[in-house]
Structures are given as structure tokens and as C-alpha cells.
């Protein structure tokens, strides 16, 4: 998954208009980033890439870009 594709999927997940996100957003400032969105994010990543993200790793992410790194680099350390 590339950067643009990732941001489009995040916008769909968070129900914000297309082109809204650039990656620098703090997750805690996003109204719709909650426990349901976190599970939706895990499902989205799993569906698109087959990766099962570890919630402990997700909990360390501060920004949209932090989430992106987990997916775009497909870092095996982040896979449960």
C-alpha cells in the first residue's frame, strides 16, 4: 500500500472528506479516532495487506504518520 492509498483509506475510516489528512495529525485530536476506529483500522490493514497489527504497537502511535509506517514498511516486528 502506498502513502496516498493509506491516507484515502484512513479518511474513509474516520469519515472525513477526501484530501483532509496529510499524515501529521495527532491521533488524539481526531474526533473519530476511538476504540472502534482502532479495530476498524486493524481490519482495514488486515484486509489490504494480510498483516495482523499488534494492539500494543498501535498504542504507541501518536500520529497518522506513525500508523502509516506500520503498514507501508510492513515491518515484521509489528506483526503479532
Amino acid at each position, binding site marked *: 500500500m502506498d502513502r496516498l492509498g493509506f491516507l484515502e483509506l484512513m479518511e474513509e475510516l474516520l469519515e472525513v472528506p477526501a484530501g483532509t489528512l496529510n499524515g501529521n495529525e495527532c491521533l488524539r485530536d481526531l474526533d473519530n479516532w476511538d476504540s*472502534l476506529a482502532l479495530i476498524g483500522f*486493524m481490519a482495514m490493514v488486515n484486509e489490504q495487506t494480510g498483516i495482523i497489527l499488534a494492539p500494543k504497537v498501535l498504542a504507541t502511535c501518536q500520529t497518522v504518520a506513525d500508523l502509516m509506517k506500520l503498514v507501508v514498511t510492513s515491518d515484521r516486528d509489528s506483526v503479532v
Partner: protein
Amino acid sequence: MASSRIENVRLAGVASAVPGPALSVSEDARFPADEVGKISASTGVHRRHLAGNQCCTSTLCAAAAESLLAGMAIPKDSIDILIFVSQTPDYLLPATACAVHGRLGLSPSCAAFDVNLGCSGYVYGLWLAASLLQAGAKRALLLVGDTISRVVSPSDRSTALLFGDAGTATVLETSVGAPPIFFELGTDGSGAEHLTVPAGAFRRPSTTATGQRREREGGNVRSDEDLFMNGGEIFAFTMRTVPMLCKTLMQRAGWSMDDADAFVMHQANRFMLQHLAKLMRLPKEKVVMALEDFGNTSSASIPLALSVSLADRLRTSTTKLVMAGFGVGFSWAGATVEAGPMTMPELVRVGSEGWEAE
């Protein structure tokens, strides 16, 4: 995974019981209406039946058992084994199975014991009962249910709008020539902390402090005697485990996707079931969803789904079922069963007079 192939045992009947009338989650006043709507849209739970503080799991299971035994017209003294699977027993001791044995008036020659399991508990119970029947018993009564709402904080949005209560009864019996039942079971105890009631038993006995509700992550309010659920960890666990469980089972049974008539998974929540169905490429019409009016009923969810979604089919014809229970423990168990025709009584609704009489 532990594997078993059971010969000459059949499911003879399933009955389910729920307490009182259904209560709508939209009536919950503790969370804003838009938040309730959002959670409900994701979980698929719109109504639940809640036990309140008077109704025990055993009450619901006994009502289901009475209905089933009457429907099957079998004598009570023909029951060799009574297994009660629940995380919400009547007492620390004795075993609730013994108390229910007395209430149902079963024979003194009937073995009775409890098993503490939740989401995987129904399939575990089938496996235990079937294994004991294969070892020489003739007929088993499996009671499975929970009143999880009684350990849920009403101010914890991760659990408060999800769970419902139910009790079920299943009769298994020896039947020469019955199609084989395949079981797969497993455990990952490293996940025990992710779905737990941390205090109130013997590791952390109940104290004033453990009973005190306070604010936790995400503004959720609960005590250490309330149910804690880490939804993310459970979701990751199910993605790791359930597709492989179902694949292994179907390979062992020699079933293709076309062969299976219905996939009856633990009714955890709609979002999870839809994602698992997508991962496994299951035909949508074969994936049973029975959450809307009952919520996640823990150990009871698979037999309750049989009662409310497949009863007509199971009464009249043989149905190839893939069952998968997964969750608290972490524990999982799956089975392929060719079930029916069998006795499937109507859903029993236990009013408050039913539990006050005990």
C-alpha cells in the same frame, strides 16, 4: 491443536431460554444517543435480554432443559451425564451442575460437573459430552449459558452495550452409524488478561477497593470486579486463530465450502464476524448472525443462534454445521457436525416469576 473424531454420537435437541423482555440499547441513558447509535451500528446489537440481579444462569438453563426434555419426551432418568458450562455459576461451591441436577430431578446415577469457559464453552461442552458418550455413557445433557450482564459495568462503553444473557440445553446421545463429529480445540493462556474479571475470586478477593468503580482508559468506568475487555487484543487473536481453525476442521471432515450448510460462530459482534467471513471467503448467506435481538451471550451464543436462526431447518433436515467458539482464555474450539432432524423447541422466555420462585 487438540483434535478428536467422535463416532456414533448425535445431537438430539437444542433449546434456549432468555430472561424477560428484550431491552433496546437505544434506551441506555448513560451514553449520548449518537455514541450508542455508533456502537450499535458496529456491534450489530440492538436489543438484549438482561437477567438483572435475581436471575441466575442456572435458572435459564433449567428452563431450557425442561422445555427440551418435554419436547423430546425422554425420561429424566435416561440422562447419564449433566455438564454445566458457564462463567457465572450460582455458587463458589457446590458445582451448579449438582444444584441443577436436584432441581431437574435427575437420577442419582447421573454424573454432574461444571466447566468454567465462555466463548469457546459450547463447543468444549459438545466435545466433552461426545467423548464421554463414546466412552460408554448413553445420553448427556449439556447446559451452557451466562448472565454476563451481571458483571458488566453500565458505564463501560466497551462492554455495556454488547452483552446479553441466555441459557441453553443440548441433548447428545449415542446413535449407531451417526456421521462423525470432528473437533479442534486450543488455548493461548498468554491472552488471559485481555478478557477478565480481575477480582472477586481467590487470587484477588473482593474488598471495598476492588468493588470501587473508577475511570479507566477512554473514560470508561468500572471496578476490578467488573468485566474488562481489551477489544483490540481479542480482535487480533480471532484473526490469528479462527480462519485456521475452520480451515483445519473442514479439511479433516473432507468438506468443501459448498458442503457446509451454515457457519455458526460465537456471536461476538457483527463487525468481527463480517471480517472473519471476509477473511475466510465464506458465502454471506451461510454465516449465521443472531446478535441483533440478543447481543453477545457469551457461552450461549452458538446454541442460541441454532435456536433462533436454524431451528426450522434442524427440525426437518440434516444440516452440515461448522461451529467455532473463540474468546476468553484465550480459548477456542470448533466442530463440524451433521445435525438434524432433531428436537428444537421454541425459544423459552423466563419472566421474573420464574426466578422468584426459586
